[in-house]
């Protein structure tokens, strides 16, 4: 449709010609163009500044500006603008400045804010109008700032040249202080002022530093005031926020207060400060409130908090000390507290009964604090270990003995453990204590002795639990440590199998009088027992012989040595009151059986019959005739047994229970046993010292005395004094293993 139309002469009529002539002269601007236009623009600016509509439309004004710029009058426009803005700003600000400080100081802030809001709005408008100027002249000319920047610098200059800036800053800070003191203030207003300062580039220069300084001063005096009247810790749970700054408080209260302040300041920043201020601000607060007074917050207050398990307050403490890098101090207090409390426990008068349970409770408490309040800080965990190792070993072998005994009590019938206790957990904790003690070889000896008693007298609660504990000990100390103990358990198992074999093998008649069960103990595993001579009652001896025969057939080449002091028996005795079952040791049983035939026997008769030596015999008779359950009586009466005494069967013996256990061992015996054990271990250790010394000298050939000691102590896991070491070295001289150096007598040479 369109294509067919071709330009051509119009249809009909003669052609008209259009002639274009050039101008004769260049068009010129009207002379007053610049001044008029500038004037128009100026009044427009005024109108904007007075929040009034401009007489001319904005579009026109835009064109005016553009026109002036195109005609190369840009700089004039710029200058005019600058002058007008300056004049206006100065005028406004001076007016605000004049208002006195004294009443309604916040008013000045408010007015400034209002000015700023208006000013920035106006400036935006101005910029829109003079956009062309901004985009061309301002942009392209060096040293000429953009309109926006220019507008700001005008204000900034004024503030800086007069003291208005400092006035504003101090008013700002006064407001902050009031808010810190608990009053409500106009936050949005402060936010605007802050923004103004930021925009003007005065924030980092003036506002922030003064703010930080004021913060420092404020908290310095607050902390001094509060810390100087700190009271000892009250045990009240939870300190309310209102308690702050009012009346004396204790350390937990203070810590809570500090947390509150920190929260407050954080909020403050988000509400009306620049976010970058936050880190400096919080650091300042912490420095004044916490770092300055750390010692006062620790010390006895710390001890009291740990004592009372004030976990949430300790959490506070930790989180406050962490950023100010005072954990070293915390660690010192932590160690000191543990050592002090621990040492006190070790010196307690009722040590025997309570030590292990107190230690377990203590460790549990500390672990709790570590994990919750101290976030399992590795150094504090290490410090705990160090402190425990230090105090627990101040009583030489006592902890070893008591821990072994504690475990023994857990394992026995009538155990101290409750049915629903987490056995695994309990033993884990005990092993943790075990880890700290020195002299684990002594522990093994005690444990072995206790285990032997449990197994032989059938006191074990559960073989599974026994195995469980051995597993844990093995995990802690290595396989070699529990060798003998495991061997003992194994022996008991084998013995059970052996017993069923034996019982089956016996002809009916032989076993009709008595029941007999033998256990075979591998000598290497079990504690050493003194062999004892005893003449057994006939039936017992027959059974014993039968057992020995059976065993010899089964295991050729093995020798059995009967341990009479380990055996037990159950004897049914007819008293006046009725029959009773007496649970006795083999020695006691043998003697009692003698009274089956006779009512009266002298000491010497008994001795001759049984073949017992004096100390054993006296002890046994004492347990039967002078103890709690007197199945025999003695003439003359008395607690001690003499070789001239006579003994009578006590038919009148009364007792509510049908079965009576008469124990053989007196407490003196137990102590004596312990002493022997320790002496044995001591001897053992000396041999190990010898072996270690020889080993070291053989390897090093020549060694200085002090170096030898150092090397030795590294290899031993128990404590040994320098005197003891020197005594061992003396024996090495005797045996020609080493000699002294001729020139330097404190150097040793190995003699190959």
């Amino acid at each position, binding site marked *: 449709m369109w294509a067919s139309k071709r330009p051509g002469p119009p249809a009909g009529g003669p052609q008209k010609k259009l002639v274009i002539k050039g101008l004769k002269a260049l068009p010129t601007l009207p002379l007053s163009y610049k001044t008029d236009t500038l004037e128009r623009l100026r009044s427009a600016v005024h109108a904007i500044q007075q929040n009034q509509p401009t007489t001319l439309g904005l579009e026109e004004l835009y064109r005016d500006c553009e026109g002036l710029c195109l005609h190369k009058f840009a700089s004039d426009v710029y200058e005019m603008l600058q002058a007008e803005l300056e004049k206006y700003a100065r005028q406004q600000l001076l007016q605000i400045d004049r208002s006195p400080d004294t009443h309604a100081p916040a008013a000045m802030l408010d007015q400034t804010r209002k000015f700023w809001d208006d000013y920035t709005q106006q400036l935006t408008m101005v910029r829109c109008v003079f956009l062309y100027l901004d985009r061309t002249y301002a942009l392209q000319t060096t040293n000429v700032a953009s309109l926006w920047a220019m507008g700001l610098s005008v204000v900034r200059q004024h503030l800086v040249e007069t003291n208005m800036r400092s006035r504003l800053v101090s008013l700002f800070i006064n407001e902050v202080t009031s808010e810190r003191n608990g009053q409500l203030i106009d936050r949005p207003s402060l936010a605007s002022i802050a923004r103004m300062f930021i925009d003007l580039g005065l924030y980092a220069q003036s506002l922030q530093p003064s703010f930080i300084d004021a913060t420092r001063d404020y908290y310095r005096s607050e902390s001094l005031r509060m810390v100087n009247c700190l009271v000892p810790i009250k045990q009240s749970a939870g300190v309310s926020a209102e308690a702050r700054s009012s009346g004396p408080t204790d350390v937990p209260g203070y810590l809570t207060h500090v947390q509150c302040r920190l929260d407050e300041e954080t909020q403050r920043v988000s509400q009306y400060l620049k976010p970058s201020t936050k880190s400096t601000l919080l650091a300042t607060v912490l420095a004044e409130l916490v770092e300055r007074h750390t010692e006062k917050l620790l010390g006895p207050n710390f001890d009291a908090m740990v004592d009372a398990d004030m976990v949430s307050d300790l959490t506070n403490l930790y989180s406050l000390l962490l950023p100010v890098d005072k954990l070293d101090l915390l660690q010192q207090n932590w160690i000191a507290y543990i050592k002090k409390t621990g040492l006190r426990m070790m010196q307690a008068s009722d040590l025997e009964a309570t030590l292990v349970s107190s230690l377990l409770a203590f460790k549990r408490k500390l672990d709790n604090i570590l994990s919750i309040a101290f976030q399992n800080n590795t150094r504090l965990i290490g410090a705990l270990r160090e402190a425990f190792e230090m105090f627990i070993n101040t009583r030489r072998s006592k902890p070893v003995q008591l821990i072994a005994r504690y475990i023994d009590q857990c394992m026995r019938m009538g155990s101290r453990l409750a049915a629903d206790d987490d056995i695994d957990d309990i033993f884990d904790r005990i092993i943790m204590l075990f880890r700290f003690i020195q002299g684990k070889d002594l522990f093994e000896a005690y444990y072995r002795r206790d285990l032997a008693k449990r197994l032989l007298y059938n006191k074990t609660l559960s073989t599974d639990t026994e195995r469980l504990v051995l597993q844990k000990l093995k995990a802690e100390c290595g396989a070699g440590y529990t060798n003998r103990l495991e061997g003992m358990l194994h022996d008991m198992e084998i013995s059970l199998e052996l017993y069923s074999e034996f019982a089956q093998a016996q002809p009916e008649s032989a076993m009709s009088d008595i029941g007999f069960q033998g256990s075979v103990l591998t000598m290497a595993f079990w504690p050493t027992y003194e062999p004892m001579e005893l003449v057994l009652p006939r039936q017992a001896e027959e059974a014993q012989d039968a057992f020995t025969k059976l065993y010899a057939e089964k295991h050729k080449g093995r020798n059995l040595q009967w341990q009479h002091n380990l055996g037990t028996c159950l004897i049914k005795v007819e008293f006046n009151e009725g029959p009773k079952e007496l649970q006795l040791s083999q020695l006691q049983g043998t003697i009692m059986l003698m009274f089956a035939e006779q009512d009266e026997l002298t000491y010497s008769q008994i001795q001759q019959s049984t073949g017992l030596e004096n100390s054993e015999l006296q002890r046994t008779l004492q347990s039967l005739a002078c103890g709690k359950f007197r199945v025999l009586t003695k003439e003359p009466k008395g607690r001690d047994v003499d070789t001239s005494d006579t003994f009578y069967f006590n038919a009148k013996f009364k007792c509510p229970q049908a079965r009576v256990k008469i124990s053989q061992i007196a407490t003196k015996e137990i102590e004596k046993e312990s002493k022997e054990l320790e002496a044995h271990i001591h001897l053992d250790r000396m041999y190990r010292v010898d072996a270690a010394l020889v080993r070291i000298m053989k390897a090093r050939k020549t060694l200085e*005395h*002090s170096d030898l000691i150092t090397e030795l102590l590294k290899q031993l896991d128990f404590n040994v004094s*320098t*005197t003891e070491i*020197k005594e061992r*070295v*003396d024996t090495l001289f*005797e045996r020609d293993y080493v000699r*002294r150096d001729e020139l330097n*007598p404190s150097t040793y040479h190995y003699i190959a």
Partner: protein
Amino acid sequence: MAKGGDLQTWFIEYQDLDRTDGRVVITPEGFEKLCDALEFNLEKIEPMVLLWKLNGVELGTVEFDGWESGMRAMNVKDIKGLKAAISRTVQDFENDSVLFKTFYRKVFDYLRPEQQRSVSAEDAVAVLPVVAGNSWVFEKFVKYLEANSDSIKVISRDQWQSLLELSKALSPDLSNYSNEDAWPAMFDGFVDWAKNSKPEAAK
């Protein structure tokens, strides 16, 4: 006259001729006689030095070989010479500590019964004052042994030898002794005892 002949003749004067085992040896009786001839006081150091110089095998016992080589070493032909040589040696002890040390160590072997490795405390108490002269450490040590005669029964070689070192090293106020040093363990007890008994001791 052959030197060897002289020495042999001289030896025979003191030799134990009643022996049936064929050993050629001077026994304590003869030795005492020799000391008499030399006018040596048996309570003093000279007899011990004599024994040493003559390469004695045990207390009061000198074999001919030792006699011969000892006399030759001292370049001595007669009693007078022998007496002078021994006296000279005793004097030399003052200045030559190495010499004295060698002698002192040998004394231990003389006191030691043949099968044993140590010397009885009793013997040590008897001999140390003779041998060690007026060293205050030895004096005190002897007192210590006497005070603890029921617990300390023997002195080992190392203790004996170290005692000499101790006498040179220990300060009169006992302040420079430390249990941490390499002294034999017994000395720890000795110094402790000495510290506690100080007020009564001389020096």
